[in-house]
């Protein structure tokens, strides 16, 4: 399957070329792994060991104290709650936002490919362009409308914002995927008297597995990792984990507990990391097949 002038290459320039290739690949693996290694290793050291030793050393005394502290007792802004409540905020925000935006994206993609109408390309173009706006341009009016809806500073408000600004991408993913789905099947079902929603549920949805995975991972990563909206619209008790991490790292009281900061950073990154480790390969394959096809 692979494009492989490499066989030829190996035969001619021999082992040296292979050695160079492997060392380069390993060198870059080190470059990509180093920051994660530093974060994890230092989150498992007592503080004075960080100060006296250096960051690449393995801990001589292993401790999970920094993790416990980051989770439940560290100072976040003014209160010593740890990251736990904000981790929960993020979950309460991510789950509904991902579910709603994915479902709407699937329906939109279905309509835009199987129930085409005059001007549908225009509608799609406008939804797609919305993916690329710099969010700074909507911050001021968004804050205002959330206020008027009574959703200012709430998790629900953040869910609404993330659903709206995720719709462009979810619609794009499903539209590109359903484009390749045979329209004849839909027409045949229609003639047999199946309704709009029956066709969606019984015919398209069962074969949408790959694109649902891509969309859910994409939305989950983007919403979990969002900092801008969280920092702009959340109140003290509704801030998501990324903003809480900022408050943890920058809280000026007392000594800088680097080990706790490291643990907090890994904690904040953990859900998306796990998702990638479990299904990253599937994600890339689906994304390439669906979205970047060009």
């Amino acid at each position, binding site marked *: 399957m692979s494009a492989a002038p490499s066989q030829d290459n190996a035969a001619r320039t021999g082992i040296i070329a292979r050695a160079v*290739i492997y060392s380069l690949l390993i060198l870059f693996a080190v470059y*990509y792994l180093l920051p994660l290694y*530093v974060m994890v290793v230092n989150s498992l050291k007592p503080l004075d060991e960080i100060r006296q030793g250096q960051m690449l050393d393995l801990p001589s005394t292993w401790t999970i104290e920094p993790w416990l502290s980051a989770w439940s007792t560290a100072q976040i802004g003014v209160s010593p709650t740890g990251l736990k409540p904000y981790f929960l905020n993020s979950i309460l925000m991510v789950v509904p936002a991902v579910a709603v935006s994915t479902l709407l994206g699937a329906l939109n993609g279905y*309509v835009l490919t199987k129930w085409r*109408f005059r001007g549908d390309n225009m509608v799609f173009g406008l939804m797609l362009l919305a993916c690329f706006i710099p969010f700074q341009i909507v911050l001021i009016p968004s804050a205002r409308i959330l206020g008027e809806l009574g959703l200012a500073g709430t998790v629900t408000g953040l869910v609404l914002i993330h659903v709206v600004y995720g719709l462009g991408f979810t619609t794009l993913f499903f539209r590109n995927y359903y484009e390749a789905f045979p329209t004849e099947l839909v027409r045949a079902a229609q003639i047999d008297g199946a309704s709009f929603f029956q066709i969606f549920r019984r015919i398209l949805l069962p074969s949408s597995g790959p694109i649902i995975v891509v969309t859910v991972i994409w939305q989950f990563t983007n919403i979990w990792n969002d900092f801008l909206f969280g920092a702009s619209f959340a109140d003290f008790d509704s801030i998501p984990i990324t903003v809480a991490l900022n408050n943890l790292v920058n809280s000026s009281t007392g000594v800088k507990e680097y080990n706790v900061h490291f643990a907090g950073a890994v904690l904040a990154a953990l859900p998306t990391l796990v998702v990638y480790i479990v299904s990253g390969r599937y994600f890339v394959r689906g994304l390439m097949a669906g979205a970047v096809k060009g």
Partner: protein
Amino acid sequence: MTQTQAEIVPVLTQGADRGARETLQEWLPKLVLAPSFALILLFVYGFILFTAVLSFTGSKLLPDFSTWVGFGNYVRLFNHPNWIVSLKNLAIFSVLYIAVCTVLGLGLAILLDQKIRGEGFLRPIYLYPMALSFFVTGVAWKWFLDPSIGLEHVMHTWGWESFSFRWIKEGKMAIYTIVIAAVWQSSGFVMAMFLAGLRGVDNEVIKAAQIDGASTVMIYRRIIIPLMRPVFLSAFVVLAHLAIKSYDLVVAMTDGGPGTATWVPALFMQKFTFGRNEMAMGASSAIIMMMMIFSIIVPYLYSELRGGRRS
């Protein structure tokens, strides 16, 4: 429009009830799409309009549509040293970020495409940084590059006393540390895009070139890399819009410092609107950001959508 004989007959026999259902079925797709489209019209295009109007007012702390200043905010913007610094930094950042990510992404993809043992092991290592937020990326690299605990300190404890790497503290060099971190976060994703592209190249073409006696380097330079044109374009669009939007990474690493050395347009907007109560100026900076992005994206989307229709 898709009614057939078989459908029309029952409509006639069963009367008005069935007719109403037919009409509903015809309208249903549009009804389903309508809420999403309405939300986007309001929250994206309506809000852009709101911000655009705001940028012509004298708003300070809150939106205020009673004083009109015309293009005054834009004039002030382009005369403000912080905005000029932001634009310069954006230029440095985006050129390096896009170029390095592309070269590194393509390079790694080509290396990985040489029938590498352990590819399945290496690929996720290159890719995982994209799972991390720009914020966590920034936090990690801030420590890693901090002279007192990071790389410089490590070199010193290893006995290389004269080693010095304190770019993150130096006004002139700090922006480059942000490039390093951003490249770390995104280059794996670009690699994945190129790898998918390389895997899609028709083997016959390569075989034919090999039979003609072309060397591996020649095959890549003359045949394979030119075939990657669409991937270059997609990568460029993805990276360019990320570059113009970049905000979290800067906040986490330097928060614009030292001084104003690492300000970028997104940070400028935030600081002026919410920090300095210069809302109208913040709005005009956001409008300029949007125009920069749209000047790249709109032609791209236009050609993509038209191309899609033809094929």
